[in-house]
């Protein structure tokens, strides 16, 4: 079972080497920066007006949090969807349909709450 993941491991190693080689080669071949000004943060040649390491809009946290909730629920729906036909075949179609419907209803209620409360409202 786990041995079927062996080629994936090979692929991972290869992909890592790929990135490393590209970055390493360009660092080796490329010219050394000779101008200190070039190493400053790019802001159209002016002194940086503000540090980016500051607080930013809470909306993004909101999106991240709501994503986390919904993504977990989507993940829980995967096995349901995949086994749906097997349940129908064993005569439990209506049961599994209603179960899924209940789950989706919970999802929809949560979604309605999020939308109505304006958590996803952008000015």
């Amino acid at each position, binding site marked *: 079972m786990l041995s079927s993941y062996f080629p994936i491991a090979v692929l991972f190693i290869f992909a890592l080497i790929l990135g490393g080689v590209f970055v390493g080669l360009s660092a080796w071949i490329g010219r050394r920066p000779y101008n200190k000004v070039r190493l400053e943060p790019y802001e159209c040649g002016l002194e940086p007006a503000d540090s980016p390491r500051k607080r930013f809009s809470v909306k993004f946290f909101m999106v991240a949090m709501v994503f986390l909730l919904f993504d977990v629920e989507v993940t829980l729906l995967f096995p349901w969807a995949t086994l749906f036909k097997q349940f129908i075949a064993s005569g439990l179609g209506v049961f599994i349909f209603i179960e899924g419907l209940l789950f989706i209803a919970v999802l929809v209620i949560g979604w*309605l*709450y999020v939308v109505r409360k304006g958590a996803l409202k952008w000015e």
Partner: protein
Amino acid sequence: MESLLNTDWLALAYNELPLLLLIVGGTLVLLADLWWPQHILPRWARRKSATVDVHVPDRTPLLLFGMLAALVAFIACWRLWVQHEMPNQMGMLVIDRFSLVGGMMIIGSTIAGLALGWGYLFQHKLPIGEYTVLMLFATAGAWCMISSANLLLAFVGIEILSISAYVLAGMDTKNRLSVESGLKYFLLGAVASAFLLFGIAFFYGATGTLSLVGFTNDGIMQAPTSQFYLILGTAFFLVGIGFKVALAPFHTWTPDVYEGAPIPVTAWFASAVKAAAFLLFARVMLVVLPLMPALGTQLIAGLAIATMFIGNMAALWQDNIKRLLAYSSIAHAGYAALALVTMATIPEAGITSLLWYLMSYSVMTIGAFAVVQLLGRDGEELTSVGALAGLGERHPWLAACLSIFLLSLAGLPPTVGFMAKYYLLANLVAAGHWGLTIAAIISSLISVGYYSYPIVVMYFRPVANQTPHNSMNVGVPIRLVIFFAALAVLVAGIFPDRLMSFIQNSVLL
């Protein structure tokens, strides 16, 4: 698959009626809250009146509906209690009289908590719909905890309860203390949940099952590794659940959270959350302790002693009533943990005294918090003990009620607190723990010191400045809560037989 086809879904739904009612009620409130019209109450209902000194918000019907849903769930619990002589095991949930009594206790606390919200929420402009929804969902989570036969479901219940509780604690976003308490509770609670989950994982490692029914003394359990995992699991579980019920080394969050959270929420924390966590604690320990060496019982006993003394000693220095009651709640968690020690030797007696203790503690702590809440002036909570000065003259009935609650918390006759402590210690002696009993009595004597402090202030300290202590008009429900709580404390304290037989009928192991 076959078993799914043959399940009687209606019977299942009927047996889980309280849970379904709480969830469906909460969901309906949630949805109604989203589209609630701006002006739905008629003008006469919205205006200030003699009984309510603030405008009644338009979302008040949601609170009432939540109370109604909880009430119906309570009645459903009662009906089930009457019908269920024997435990009814259904997959992950077990419906026996133990869980039904616990359910009634918790749902009763929730009704009281919602009733306390009336007025407080108006004055502090808190979101009524969300308060109701969170209360109902948290109660559903508590139900999952106390009636679960499976540790996984219990954990889900704990998380439903805890996450709702974190939000409830931080609900008053305009109040820095409330936000702080919500954040503290959340951070520490998350760590505690992780410990709990670790404990559950070790239990699984020891027994190979998550079902509490499967924790039996068979061959697997005799293996030394199983014993090791079991002890490790118990230790982790104690840390996690010890946090939830505020046992001594893990109690530090309690004063801050109880102080910062809105008073109705605090009252509900002290009663419902604590009861739910204790009942789950008891349910797990009931099957785990017999499998273990005496070490587990000794651990709980040690925690209980530490909790009692730390809670009571720290409370002596408190000048803030909410903090005082918070430390008192820690101390009471210590007493209740003694019931678990009893349970290790005499299970029936232990559970009886635990139910007794939790029930009486819920009633008296809700009463005490309700009085404190009623004393708050418009938009401000009254928290310092000194502000109680002269209350005995100004509001004799209220002062009397508060005195009753405090005396009951101290465990003096003729109150229910005395009866509860009496049964607890009597059973402890019966189980042969003399040392623990003496420690409990000593710490109880210490506690009289700080419980009498507010009483002394109320009756004997002259009023310093004659500020017009106006407006205690926050509605009928809170007065009803205080009245019924005081009545219950006195009646159950003087005539405990019926309640005793009710509880003993509930414990059929």
